[in-house]
């Protein structure tokens, strides 16, 4: 082992990449992280001089869907991230060592890179009964998370478990499952919710930290604005159906076969902030609504308790597509006061009128009006 870790550009050279290819990758990174062309020089410089960022990845109360999602990343692909971009020094899912040797690897990184390593957490931490509901190496998750956070440069809370507690924190939360931001203070924490988060959102968050050496802009809930500032509803390709009052009334009905809006089937798109409508899933193949099932709101806190999933939102206010999560607030859910009609009226009355005029006379056998 050499003493001085190689920079990313030096490693790229060793792998036989040309400068041109390297610059193309840096350009991709910049695009991925939403950087303007003028910022590209900064990305290249960062990658020329940085050694791989030491990273430790913890698993507590979780199902490993976040890790599985991460390895689905298509740009960059995960072997490039793990071998070339970061040094993933502890991850129970992939690392070769187990038991003592695994813990030693963790300990080495925490000591050698104190204050420099990135801490990734998958899973919530149980607080009831002195934390006995999740133990690793005979120690509680709470004990472990506190110690590791101490020397971390920043923390990424992967998925809904670490960001808001997810399923185990839903009623009656038998183990006292608690998200990371309620346990750790005094460290930058990035929440990347979703069950799981989209692979490229996870990779994009890492890329941002790596390329710019700073935390991405976060909203009031600690989520990167780049990925969580738009409602699924506002980025949904089926939105025109909503605006036109064209709804699926039953799974597999004629309207379902035409891809109408799933609002009446309980779709949570109108109250869910995520990138599903933009980035989509598994390299852009589809997303839940495109495949005929409503959004269940998996990136929103308490989504498990805002059910049943197939009961449509009684109503929600008529905010426009420029409204962000911060201004709307998080209290939205089933049963908020202002009606769907208000939404339609306030934002779409002109558009609907035009559409209705346009389709007048054409065959619309089961068309339903919004708010009817």
């Amino acid at each position: 082992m050499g003493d001085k870790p190689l920079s990313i550009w030096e490693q790229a050279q060793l792998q036989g990449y040309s400068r041109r290819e390297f610059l193309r990758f840096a350009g991709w990174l910049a695009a991925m992280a939403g950087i303007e062309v003028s910022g590209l020089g900064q990305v290249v410089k960062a990658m020329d001089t940085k050694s791989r960022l030491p990273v430790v990845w913890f698993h507590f109360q979780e199902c490993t869907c976040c890790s599985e999602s991460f390895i689905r990343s298509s740009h960059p692909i995960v072997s490039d991230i793990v071998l070339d971009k970061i040094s993933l020094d502890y991850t129970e899912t992939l690392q070769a060592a187990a038991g003592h040797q695994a813990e030693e690897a963790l300990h080495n990184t925490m000591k050698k890179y104190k204050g420099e390593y990135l801490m990734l957490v998958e899973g919530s931490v149980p607080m009831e009964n002195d934390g006995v509901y999740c133990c690793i190496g005979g120690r509680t998750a709470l004990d472990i998370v506190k110690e590791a956070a101490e020397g971390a440069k920043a923390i990424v809370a992967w998925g809904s478990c670490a960001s808001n507690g997810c399923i185990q924190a839903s009623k009656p939360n038998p183990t006292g499952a608690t998200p990371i931001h309620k346990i750790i203070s005094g460290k930058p924490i990035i929440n990347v919710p979703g069950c799981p988060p989209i692979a490229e959102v996870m990779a994009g968050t890492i890329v941002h930290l790596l390329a710019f050496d700073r935390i991405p802009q976060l909203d009031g809930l600690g989520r990167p604005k780049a990925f969580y500032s738009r409602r699924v509803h506002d980025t949904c390709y089926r939105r025109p159906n909503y605006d036109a009052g064209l709804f699926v009334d039953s799974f597999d009905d004629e309207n379902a076969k035409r891809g109408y809006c799933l609002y009446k089937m309980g779709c949570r798109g109108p109250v869910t902030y995520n990138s599903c409508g933009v980035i989509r899933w598994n390299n852009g193949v589809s997303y839940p609504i495109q495949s005929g099932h409503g959004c269940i709101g998996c990136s929103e806190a308490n989504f498990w308790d805002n059910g049943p999933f197939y009961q449509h939102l009684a109503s929600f206010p008529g905010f426009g597509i420029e409204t962000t999560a911060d201004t709307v607030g998080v209290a939205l859910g089933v049963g908020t006061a202002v009606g769907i009609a208000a939404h339609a009226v306030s934002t779409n009355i002109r558009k609907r009128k035009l559409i209705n005029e346009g389709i007048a006379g054409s065959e619309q056998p089961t068309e339903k009006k919004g708010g009817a």
Partner: protein
Amino acid sequence: MAKRIVVDPITRIEGHLRIEAEVRDGKIVDAYSSGTMVRGFEIILKGRDPRDAWAFAERACGVCTTVHALASVRTVEDALQITVPPNAELIRNLMFCAQYMQDHVVHFYHLHALDWVDVVSALKADPKKTSDIAQSISSWPKSSPKYFADVQKRLTAFVNSGQLGIFANGYWGHAAYKLPAEVNLLGTAHYLEALEWQKEVVKVHTIFGGKNPHPNYLVGGAACAINPDDANAINAERLAYVGTLLDDAREFIEKVYIPDLLAVASFYKDWGAVGGGLSNYLAYGDLPTNGYGDPSKFKFPRGAILNRDLSKVLEVDGKNAEQIEEYINHSWYEYSDGDTKGKHPWVGETKLKYSGPKPPYDFLNVEQKYSWLKTPRWKGNAMEVGPLARLLVAYASGNAEVKELVNGTLKKLDVPVAALFSTLGRTAARGLETVLVSNWSKEFYSQLLANIKNGDTRVFNGAKWDPETWPKEAKGVGLTEAPRGALAHWIVIKDKKIDNYQLVVPSTWNASPRDGKGQMSAYEAALIGTPVKNPDQPLELLRTIHSFDPCIACAVHLYDERGDYVHHINTY
């Protein structure tokens, strides 16, 4: 001298598993398996809408994603007597097959391979010789000397960087590694290729279920409407996409996974006599070809085998209260009528009651309760579940396709039938069934196309969608085969809500603690006799445990026969 070793965390698995084992004369003579994390799903599911249960249950596992959703929708459909349309059954089968292909390949390369492949040794390989080996076992195109030289160069740069990442502190150079450097290089190259490949086949889930991990399911069928004449439904483009994904997956399985599996196995034939463990096998069966209601037409048959007697396949009934029961003699729970009687899941109870040592602890009290897993039994017997159990039940049921494949492989490896009952047998069975599943997936795909061609586009039966159509009380069970083995959910519905919901998952069968009679479950039994040359480097223990593809996180520590701690592992 005997030592007790504790491995915690056991890595390259899903979840939190801890193994405490006693080693004497280089072999494991006693073992205890403990699940050290609990979330309380069964408690959380109470009072919910049964139609929502699949989404909750699916979150039991993100590695074998989909399988709990499938078990759940079947459970509710069984309770409400819903039959799903043939297309929905086919779509579920295709999602099932995609899950097996992805999961088994990831297990082999990313969770299990490092137990057999010494990555560091690959640095010394001659890429030309690796190329010769690769071309002699497969027609996979990425096999030139230049290709392997590039992989080696990349690996060398990685090691020279001084940051070993996921390979740090591995057991490199351990005497139990037997592959030549050239085969290690082949394995390492395919580790990286498989990592890139695995993200493709799951797109079958994305097309039908909208995302992966955790695609959407639906009680009554599938949500993805079929309409060959619309852009917003399953149409010819979407179906062609699925067809291409299945073809590409089959090619990788046939040209990379299976040749690698056989090549690696040929150097580790002695592991065909290690880790046999239990002699009882249980499979619920799956992949219906005539509807879920007709198990006799499943591709994977249902049944149980006792005492490795392949001449008899015993009938399995999930509804029979005498057959499947869960015990908590050694589990951190309490039952309302005492902790020593078994309970059928329909009357199952989940009340957490921790009585283990106060953390931080060095050892569990294995004489008392020592795990968050309950202990399931079939007619009182401890049963192994998983790929080996499925293959044996199919073999013993006389399935010609399975018999031919198994016999052919045994002959190729030149090992006796008895070699199946082992660590190696489990790993080989997983590969063989992946071949079967990839073949079957094309049959299901063709049937789906044929149905649509004939004008049947139905994917959903909505007759019982409205809770007003439900009886006041109903009970159901949903059986499936997760990649890791027999999986079932049980539900009791009262007044349109979930009154009781119980999951008995594959790793509960395999990784559970002892029962009241002291009978070990599969992990514990299989570890007996597994060699451990160096207790500080429990590589062989990992081989046997990983052969089950655990779906829980684990742990191992070390102590001597007097119980003195010889190796402190709490180094956080």
